[in-house]
């Protein structure tokens, strides 16, 4: 009964989103206020219906309704309630419904927040989002319906994929979807601007935060995925250049280029066509990423999300590219730049360079993902493109970008004098050099690591210098104390100084990445009280315990950790055997001792017999600086939040009504 209700609600949502799409087209053309309001209500209704559908599916999971096929194949009675909740998006149908729900949520909030901007631009933006909504909901309704019932009720479900039974998996997919889906808002407003011929900066200002939100979630979602890989997959790393990881990186890279590039349009009224092209590319890559994940055209650790609906996403990518390109081409006359620049050594020049590097990085990743397919199609040769290729190609580009992160903010708009360059760069450059010389003296010989440390020092120096100079200037004009001047400086220009905080977070990420150059690992086969040594650590095997849980048998090895003869603590790496599954699937739960310097990371690979004595097999890693990746993620979060805090100037601007007379707004 409940499954039927869910199905009914799903089809009702398809109807309301179709109506919203058609009504928005008409209201965009005719500027009819009644129809605009009707469209908005349809958008609200679609969100409510998607929310209901998801609520019903969650209820079916939590109540073990195994008469529903999707529930029976993705949950089981023994699954903890929290995981029953997250099991909803562990398969194709539920994850698509989550996607559709997030899309309807973005449509709802974007419509709600831009009510004061009612007019053709907003209406056409609604058309784009609603059309995508119809596509997703239609796909769910026809191909991947999670409410299909079995004609019998199995006593128990098949259970959730054991690899997904992890807290990070509870939030990694929703965060990534928030990123993937969220880029539709700036894309839709860009297309709305072209369709309504209002191609000024309005669409950029309206969607600035709507761009930051998905950019943030896409980045954080990937880092959470990295955390999951680090803890669950047990290969000692957090980024394996998996094709699906790469697919999520692509729109993040172009989205970052877009976030920088729009500043030139806002400030200087330049690069209008380029910004349009960037947001089109970003959204296209979002759908392309979905296509890669769902189609199975590349081998990936995300194989569990594959299904035959891949071609539909391929078709959607094609539609977006063709439609957007034609629209952009036919509106080129409206996108002429008005102002010009004076010198390549300027903020404009820096941003252009930034865009070239981000797009090269995007191309390199895309090329690496697609090359095996291209190679096989053209030459018949099956080729592997994995981490060594991406590391070789991406590390130099990443370091160039890091260097530019340090240089860019110190460049002035229009022109930077050589005197100014010397004055601003002297101390940060010295600090950067010091950051490379010290590790070199201490014995570091990896050239990329030294460059990375130097660039990190330079960027940190420029950021500190920017805050310091700003606080001194503010302090001297307002008489505030240094600390208050720093706080108020950031408060009054959240976008600029929040951006610097984000840059600092990126520096920390790079420091963490650089640690990879110094990773050590050993394999050890230890009998009771035998020891193994790695770096400064000695690990002594102190036995194993066995615990039978509802879903698993947990085999927990105990290791004493010593450094210079002093016991630091105990580590408990685990092997989990899903004994109720036919395949007796095993997963590992690594044990990590983390400090600011390095992670001691122990993986238990299993148990064996030697001379009639039981031995445990371990893979032990010392991964320097990893914790700075996670700290960097938090700093980026704080910086992004600062940039997104409300600004009184934006409020004043929002009061303006575009496209519709003020009286009509009052009536509404």
């Amino acid at each position, binding site marked *: 009964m409940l499954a039927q209700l869910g199905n009914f609600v799903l089809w009702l949502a398809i109807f309301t989103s179709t109506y919203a799409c058609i009504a928005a087209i008409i209201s965009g053309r005719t500027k009819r206020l009644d129809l605009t309001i009707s469209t908005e209500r349809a958008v609200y209704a679609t969100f409510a219906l998607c929310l209901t559908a998801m609520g019903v599916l969650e209820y079916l999971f939590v109540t073990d309704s195994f008469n529903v096929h999707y529930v029976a194949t993705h949950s089981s009675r023994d699954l903890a309630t929290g995981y029953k909740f997250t099991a909803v998006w562990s398969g194709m149908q539920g994850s698509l419904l989550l996607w559709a729900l997030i899309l309807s949520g973005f449509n709802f909030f974007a419509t709600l927040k831009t009510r004061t901007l009612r007019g053709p631009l907003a209406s056409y933006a609604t058309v784009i989002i609603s059309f995508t909504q119809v596509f997703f909901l239609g796909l769910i309704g026809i191909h991947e319906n999670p409410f299909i019932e079995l004609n019998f009720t199995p006593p128990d479900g098949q259970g959730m994929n054991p690899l997904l039974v992890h807290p990070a998996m509870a939030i990694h997919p929703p965060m990534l979807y928030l990123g993937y889906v969220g880029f539709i808002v700036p894309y839709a407003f860009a297309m709305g601007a072209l369709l309504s011929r209002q191609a000024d900066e309005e669409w950029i200002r309206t969607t600035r935060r709507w761009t930051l939100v998905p950019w943030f979630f896409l980045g954080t979602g990937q880092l959470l995925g990295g955390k999951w890989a680090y803890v669950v997959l047990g290969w000692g790393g957090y980024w394996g250049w998996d094709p699906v990881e790469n697919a999520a990186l692509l729109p993040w890279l172009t989205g970052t280029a877009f976030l920088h590039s729009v500043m030139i349009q806002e400030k200087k009224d330049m690069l209008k066509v380029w910004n349009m092209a960037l947001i089109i590319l970003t959204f296209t890559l979002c759908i392309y990423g979905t296509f890669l994940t769902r189609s199975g055209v590349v081998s990936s650790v995300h194989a569990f999300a594959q299904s035959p609906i891949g071609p539909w996403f391929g078709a959607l990518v094609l539609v977006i590219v063709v439609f957007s390109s034609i629209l952009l081409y036919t509106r080129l006359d409206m996108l002429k730049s008005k102002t010009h620049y004076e010198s390549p050594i300027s903020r404009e020049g820096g941003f252009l360079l930034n865009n*070239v590097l981000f797009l090269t990085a995007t191309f390199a990743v895309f090329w690496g993902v697609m090359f095996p397919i291209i190679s096989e199609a053209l030459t018949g*040769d099956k080729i*592997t493109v994995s981490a060594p290729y991406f590391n070789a190609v991406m590390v130099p580009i990443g370091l160039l970008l890091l260097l530019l992160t340090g240089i860019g903010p110190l460049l002035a708009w229009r022109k930077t004098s050589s005197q100014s360059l010397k004055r601003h760069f002297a101390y940060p450059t010295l600090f950067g050099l010091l950051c490379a010389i010290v590790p070199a003296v201490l014995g570091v010989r990896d050239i990329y690591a030294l460059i990375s440390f130097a660039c990190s020092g330079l960027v940190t120096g420029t950021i500190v210098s920017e805050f310091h100079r700003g606080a001194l200037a503010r302090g001297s004009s307002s008489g505030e104390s240094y600390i208050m001047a720093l706080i108020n400086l950031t408060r009054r220009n959240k976008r600029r100084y929040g951006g610097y905080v984000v840059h600092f977070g990126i520096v920390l990420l790079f420091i963490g990445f650089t640690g990879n150059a110094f990773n050590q690992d050993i394999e050890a086969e230890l009998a009771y009280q035998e020891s193994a040594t790695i770096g400064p650590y000695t690990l002594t095997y102190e036995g194993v315990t066995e615990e039978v849980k509802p879903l698993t048998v947990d085999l927990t090895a105990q290791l004493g950790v010593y450094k210079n003869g002093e016991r630091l603590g105990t580590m408990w790496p685990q092997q989990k055997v899903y004994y109720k599954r036919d395949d007796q699937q095993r997963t590992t739960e690594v044990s990590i001792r983390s400090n600011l310097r390095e992670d001691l990371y122990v993986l238990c690979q299993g148990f064996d017999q030697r001379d009639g004595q039981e031995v445990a097999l371990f893979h032990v890693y010392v991964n320097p600086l990893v914790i700075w990746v996670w700290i960097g993620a938090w700093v980026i979060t704080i910086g992004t939040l600062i940039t997104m805090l409300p600004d009184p100037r934006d409020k004043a601007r929002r009061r303006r009504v575009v496209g519709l007379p003020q009286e009509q707004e009052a009536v509404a």
Partner: protein
Amino acid sequence: MTREKKEEKLEKKKHLLSSWDALIKYRIKNRTSALWREPIRALFFAFLLPSLFSLFFALPASAEVTKIQRDEVGKELACLCGTCPRRPLDECTCGHAQQQHARIDALLGAGKTKQQVIDAYVADFGKIVLSKPPAEGFGLMAWLMPPFVLVFGFFMVRNVLRTWSQSKPVPIAATGQQSNEKDPYLDKLEQELREREL
């Protein structure tokens, strides 16, 4: 590690060798048999082979092959287990990768060079087993395209900047754009910064 333990470890690694390792051994054996037909080489192998053979058993392979040596080879080869994203063998920890570690140890222990081990893998699996595209033939395109795009991008930026600089500058005030961004607070801050720099 005692001698018994070393031997036991060797036995264990041998046990782990999969069927195609036997195939390779068979191929090596056949090639060697063919060489017997030539007298000079026959003499050479008559001396060398027993020496290698005795060396192989006198000094167990696992004792000779360090993890660093294995990783040197492993990072050039991809794990083809079908579940991981073809992770390099030196990083992968799956069951299939562990089997390959044993095979690499055995091949290196038998006196093969890094390149010979890689060639043996390519002969068995094709180029797909290499962890990165070979820098030859069409594989070269994988390496050349990203730098080409970077250079092309720089070239495009240079052209765009040149075009812009040749255009007649439009006064900022005439565009009406700056007014949207004008902020008295920022102006004051920038002014203060300029004054401090004088």
